[in-house]
Each structure stands twice: as C-alpha cells, then as structure tokens.
C-alpha cells in the first residue's frame, strides 16, 4: 500500500468526524431557541373557555391516584390551572411543567393543578409526574372539561388532548389571566403567571 492510498481514507474519516462535530456544535447553539418561555400572553382561541373576570366553570376530576378533586378544593388562595396536551410524547410540555414547578415549588400560597385528558394520562405521563415530585395536583379529565372549554383537539390516534392553556384564578375562582396557545413549544413565563396571582415573587 502506498503512502497516498493509506492517507486518503484517514483524511476522509477526519473530515467526516469534523462535519459531525460541527453539526453537533451548531445544534448545541441553535437548539436553545427550539422551545422556550416568553413574557407575552397569547390568546389563540378567543372563543374558548371563560374570559378574564368570569368565574371558572366548576369541575370535579380525579387525580392520578383516583382521589376526586373539585374546583372548590383549590379555592381560598390563587390557583393556576395548567392544561397540557401530554406529559408522555410532548417534550416542550414537560419542560413547561418543570419550569413552573421550579418557580412555584415550596409555595403554600398558590395552588398548581396540571390537567390532562384521560387519553393523555398514559403510564409514562404518570411516571413523569411521580419521578419529578412536582408540587401540583395532576388531574385527569375524563368528564369532558377540556371539550366543554373548547380547548380540546384530536391528538395521536385521534384521542382528544388539550391545547396548551393556562388559567390563573384568584381566591374567589375568577379568571385573572388566560393564555391559550396552539403551539406547545413556546409557553408563558412563570414570572408573568406569578405576577397575575398578585402574590410576592418571594414566598
């Protein structure tokens, strides 16, 4: 084997590895904008759900352990209702829930409830909720609350899932902030949600 023929595959391998490393670098730089929190409130389904100032419809839903939780159980101090499409296949939704849990963790003056449809309450969703020890009620909507609010859309295998929506309720159960989106990759910043509750940023 001559020197030239030995060198060729060597350089080709180095170039291939270099291209792969450059691609990884580019992904590491660009992936930051792939999904994120933003400060602006969006309302991409204005006709859905209660408007700001209206009372949120009453509901009674089971949590992941089967205990039934009513809206009245959340009353007494501000509550954040987080409608999520899935905690199984939706990576940005998991990031959104963790973001909020990090901002609200340890606070006793606000209640956090994550609501997902019965079809989305898969074993992987349940495991996510259990493993991350998120200080929130995880409610399973088998009663059609999502459909009633008008934020239900067909998910994978046509099982209905909720659009990413956030409702902040005051202590009396009135809506003080609503944020309804079609795209789960950009969500509302927890600081904006906390500001809507009227509570101090520091518990």
């Amino acid at each position, binding site marked *: 084997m001559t020197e030239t023929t030995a060198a060729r595959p060597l350089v080709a391998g180095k170039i291939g590895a270099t291209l792969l*490393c450059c691609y990884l670098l580019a992904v590491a730089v660009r992936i930051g904008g792939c999904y994120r929190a933003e400060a602006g409130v969006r309302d991409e389904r204005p006709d859905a759900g209660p408007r700001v100032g209206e009372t949120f419809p009453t509901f009674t839903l089971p949590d992941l352990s089967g205990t039934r939780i009513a809206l009245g159980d959340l009353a007494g101090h501000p509550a954040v209702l987080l409608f999520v499409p899935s905690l199984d296949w939706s990576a940005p939704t998991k990031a959104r829930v963790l973001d909020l849990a990090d901002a609200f963790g340890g606070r006793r003056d606000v209640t956090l409830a994550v609501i997902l449809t019965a079809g989305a309450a898969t074993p992987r969703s349940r495991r996510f909720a259990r493993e991350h020890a998120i200080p929130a009620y995880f409610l399973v909507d088998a009663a059609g609350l999502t459909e009633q609010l008008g934020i239900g859309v067909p998910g994978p295998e046509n099982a209905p899932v909720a659009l990413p929506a956030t409702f902040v309720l005051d202590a009396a159960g009135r809506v003080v902030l609503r944020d309804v989106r079609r795209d789960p990759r950009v969500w509302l910043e927890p600081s904006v949600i906390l500001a809507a509750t009227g509570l101090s940023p520091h518990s």
Partner: protein
Amino acid sequence: MPSPTRSYLAYRLLAATAAGVCFLVGLVCVVAFFDRALFQLFARPLFATDYWGYYVLAFAGSALVAWGGCLVAAVRDPVGASGVGTATAAALVLASILRLLAWYSGEYRLAADQLRVEAGVLAIVALGFVWLKPPRLDDPRVVERSREDAA
C-alpha cells in the same frame, strides 16, 4: 503520515487533561457511592438520586478511571496507543449527542443550558482528538521514536 521526529506535544497535553478529568470525575462517582453505601460522612448526599442511581454512578466512575488509564498510555506513547484517541473522540461525540437528546427530551429542563454548553465543549474536545491524534502506523521506527520521546 506522521514524522518519526514529531513528539505530538499538543495531543499529549489534550490527552493528559482529559485523563485528569476522567480520574477526577471517576473518583468523585466512586467516592459518592462508598459514602452513600457505607460511611455516610457527607452531611448531604453528593448526588440527588436513589440507591440504583449510586450503583450506576459507581459503575460509570470505575469506567472513567479505566478510561483515564488508557489516556495516560496515549500520553506516554501517542503513536503506539493512537487507537485510544480514536476511541476517545468517538465516546466524546456520543456523550455530546446524549446531552443534546437529554436537552430535547424536556425532562432535564432545570439543567438545560448546562447540557447545551457541555455538548458543545465535548464536540470541540472531540475535534481536538480527531485532528491532533497521530495516525495509526505500522512503521516500527515511528513507534520507537515515540517511545523514546516518552522516555
């Protein structure tokens, strides 16, 4: 083709630094396991995980110490042990991909930017190993020269 007179100083420095990091992280993982399993000297556990997590940490720590040993061989004899550089570059690329996938999964949200930075740094270090590594060579004169340099 590598020159018999080259000593591959930059490659040796890179391998030595990587070996140091491997030893350090590996020992921390092993020590964390021993502390959790036997002694419990630290007031707070070093890692927020359960007993299976510590078991896997100890396994990974042992592998890192072994990897560090291989990199020391590459420092001592860069041409003779050039395969270590190839394997290290491949492992670094894999580690970079794992971090990006972890970021994308959403489950590691609270360490998000740290994962991206780590992935970028690992890709750059992998590039260093790819381009500084001496090619594998069957010429005994080059191997001999490399060993003389190391001595």
